[in-house]
């Protein structure tokens, strides 16, 4: 019923694997990429096409365990299986793994003989599952079944006992499993909730399921039996309601945490001496600074970078060599870190989710030498921030414009969207100025037909731009006055641009609040009618928690009100009024985290040259420094 199980290093070397059928590489690489890219993955399951995957990691040994199976089977015992395989593998081969003594050159083989153990664990997990299902069936249907029932009952009881005793063990010790287990248990609950949902959905597909006979094996009988399914669902509903209680509890503790943060702050625990400090910009920036010091050791980078090293370090305790980090070691310093981010204007829930992901990365890591906990957190934090801010697509707009011109011989189209007064029109003009500097022909489409003065504002910009740009530049305004449908005007502008040899069409739109449904609908129409190359969201750097709302609502509207299969979301962000925020650059992080889209430009003032590219290393530094 499993398709594939793999144990690999996080570096990507496969240590042991078992394929029950051959599967493509793609699901695994999709899973790993999503682990890299999303900072907070809620549960330990992931699906891609028809495949479902459950996984576990060991940060201490740098391993990942992945089970792959057909989503349609809804195997419920995989969580347990992955967990017990991890436990067994790490337990059996600890020394080999610590020494990275994975392979034997002479025999050309791996030093693990894991097959027998795996088979055993797999069988017992399967049986446990079967029994719990059979229990719910109440009446085994024939003799054969009842016999199986008897046989497996014994075995599975044993297995259940094993599992629970293992759990008790680990919660008593202070090992990595402690916190990892908690994570798994939590997510398992969430997982169950998910399954309820899936189950409901799958009711429809039930008839199809029978086609899949060879793969199903034992559980098929239960699947075909409607009553069992109902029973099963009831059970699941029960657990999901229980889960609700749990989450509210969690929420409560979260709230308490926040209160603590605020208190700590107002009480001034972090006095002027308890602040953290970061090496000044330039010393580590992008590593671009040439280091004349030949002895610079890469490994020492973290300790050179501040935080861990400086005064706040006194606040954090020093950890003994060889200690394995647990989640309770991390709670307090991570909370501090979140507070720090919130002070930098990062939206509160984003700060918290980043904290969680840093924590996840560190639980189970072994402390080398006498290290302060902060010197471990600092680099993990820096990496996480960098990862969020690093765009996952090219941001070379000039290259894109060239490509569109070369391949399709049409103008490249940009539409500027955002709430009122954030700087859409101003920054559109700045982008235009830059394009003109690069000898591109630009048409500006005045599609803000709503706010009086909007068209005139652009007219003034165009006159200025003509005067300030090279003599042979070409920039014009396409206007149709007020009150008309902006989607139509944009369409006409693009056609005009195409026939008259413009390279770029910049579309200015009216500011709109994210809750204004008619206006949001109109925007989404403009997008679906004109299919712009880039939807640019202009947002103020001053915005705090509100940024999350704005972006999600804009994206949601674009998705909701557009024809199916043509849905678009925001493609990039301009962060305006960056000159007004000092080092409270949190909005940059919030916006990229929410959208996963890059910050194309930052607006740094009111003149045409006040448009800059973003420098990720400097944003990271600003976020970290005190």
């Amino acid at each position, binding site marked *: 019923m499993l398709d594939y199980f793999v144990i690999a290093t996080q570096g990507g070397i496969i240590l042991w694997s078992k394929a029950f059928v051959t599967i493509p590489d793609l699901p695994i690489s999709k899973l790993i990429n999503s682990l*890299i890219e999303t900072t907070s993955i809620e549960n330990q399951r992931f699906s891609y096409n028809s495949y479902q995957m459950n996984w576990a990691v060991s940060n201490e040994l740098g391993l990942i365990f992945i089970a792959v199976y057909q989503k349609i089977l809804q195997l419920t015992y995989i969580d347990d299986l992955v967990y017990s395989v991890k436990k067994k593998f790490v337990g059996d081969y600890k020394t080999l793994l610590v020494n990275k003594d994975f392979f034997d050159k002479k025999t*050309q083989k791996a030093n693990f003989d894991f097959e027998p153990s795996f088979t055993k664990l797999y069988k017992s997990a399967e049986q446990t599952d079967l029994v719990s299902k059979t229990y719910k069936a109440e009446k085994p249907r024939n003799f054969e079944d009842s016999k199986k029932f008897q046989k497996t009952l014994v075995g599975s009881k044993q297995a259940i006992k094993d599992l629970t005793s293992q759990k008790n063990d680990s919660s008593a010790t202070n090992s990595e499993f402690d916190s990892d287990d908690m994570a798994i248990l939590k997510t398992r609950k969430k997982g169950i909730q998910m399954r309820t949902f899936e189950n409901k959905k799958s009711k429809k597909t039930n008839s199809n399921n029978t086609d899949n006979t060879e793969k199903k094996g034992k559980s098929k009988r239960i699947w075909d039996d409607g009553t069992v399914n109902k029973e099963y669902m009831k059970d699941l509903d029960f657990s999901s309601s229980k889960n609700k209680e749990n989450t509210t509890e969690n929420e409560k503790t979260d709230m308490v945490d926040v209160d603590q943060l605020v208190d700590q702050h107002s009480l001034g625990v972090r006095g002027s001496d308890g602040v953290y400090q970061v090496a000044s910009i330039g010393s580590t920036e992008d590593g671009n600074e040439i280091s004349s010091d030949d002895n610079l050791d890469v490994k020492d980078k973290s300790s050179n970078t501040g935080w861990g090293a400086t005064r706040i370090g006194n606040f954090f305790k020093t950890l003994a060599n060889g200690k394995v980090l647990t989640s309770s070691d991390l709670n307090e310093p991570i909370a501090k870190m979140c507070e720090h981010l919130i002070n930098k204007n990062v939206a509160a829930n984003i700060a918290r989710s980043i904290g969680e992901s840093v924590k996840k990365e560190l639980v189970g890591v072994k402390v080398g030498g006498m290290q302060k906990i902060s010197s471990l957190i600092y680099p993990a934090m820096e990496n996480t921030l960098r990862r969020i801010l690093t765009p996952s697509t090219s941001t070379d707009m000039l290259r894109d414009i060239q490509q569109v011109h070369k391949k399709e011989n049409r103008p490249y189209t940009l539409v500027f969207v955002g709430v009122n007064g954030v700087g859409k029109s101003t920054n559109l003009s700045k982008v235009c100025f830059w394009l003109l500097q690069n000898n591109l022909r630009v048409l500006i489409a005045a599609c803000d037909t709503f706010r009086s003065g909007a068209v005139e504002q652009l007219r003034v910009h165009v006159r200025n731009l003509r005067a300030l740009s090279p003599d042979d530049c070409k920039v014009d305004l396409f206007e149709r006055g007020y009150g008309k449908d902006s989607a139509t005007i944009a369409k006409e502008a693009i056609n005009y641009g195409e026939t008259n040899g413009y390279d770029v069409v910049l579309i200015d739109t009216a500011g709109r609040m994210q809750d204004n449904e008619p206006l949001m609908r109109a925007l989404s129409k403009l997008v679906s009618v004109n299919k712009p190359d880039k939807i640019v969201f202009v947002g103020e750097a001053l915005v705090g928690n509100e940024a999350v709302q704005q972006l999600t609502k804009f994206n949601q509207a674009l998705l909701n009100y557009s024809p199916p299969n043509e849905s678009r979301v925001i493609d990039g962000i301009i962060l305006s009024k960056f000159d007004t925020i000092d080092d409270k650059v949190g909005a940059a992080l919030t916006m990229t985290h929410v959208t996963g889209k890059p910050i194309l430009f930052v607006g*740094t003032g009111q003149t045409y040259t006040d448009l*800059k590219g973003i420098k990720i290393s400097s944003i990271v530094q600003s976020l970290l420094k005190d």
Partner: protein
Amino acid sequence: MNYFEIFIWVLSFAIVAFLLFTVLNHRVDLSFVFGGAGKKKNGILILGLPDSGKTTIWAWFRYTLVLPTQTSMKVNEEEIPVHLMDKTVNVFLTDIPGNIKLRHQFIQYLPICKGIMFVVDSSKIDENYQEVSEYLYDVLTSTQVFEQKIPIAIICNKRDDEKSIKGTEIKLKIEDELNHLRSTRTLALDSHDDNGSYKDDIYLGIQDEKFEFLHIPNQVAFIETSFQSSLDKSPVLIGHSELSSWVIDRLE
């Protein structure tokens, strides 16, 4: 004599106190004080797009085996002895995952880097030459690679694949694309905290001439390789000794 002894004591006390003082206050780099000084720069980096074969190559250096791999989520880094004929050289070999969110980590490894293997999947270059070139452009224009003229080997991997193309063709393709990128990238806006330093303005090659690898100060080698040993096909190993000797040359 007595005075001398006292003098020594006072002196050593002063040294210890001074060290403690500096360590506590300025956090001098300890590796400098304790033995770090003798360390040689022996870093070699393996870079390239996802799925090009970086981890396969790293593991081949580490275990002399062609091992099965999957997508990397962490860096592979170890000091590894590389043998060729009667020579053995210790190399700090680092494989940086190709995932776009993790790539930038290579910059941290440049201070001790003596050479970069840039791995390309020769069977997919027709589809991804743009992405390949963009990454390579970023590598070539990072300050330390440029200024320290860190040598680059473009590893044209998966030459066993029938769809793969020759190293010489790959070279032309990449040169062509770098030529385009050079024109658009140098026109991009300065970044918001640009403090007038010139590092954002590195220009690859010669102004007004089409880009060629010959025009940049770095040595650029092209090496064709294959590290393929699946069960159903007969194993094909191409270019591994050429690769080892390139590595050894970098460190001598």
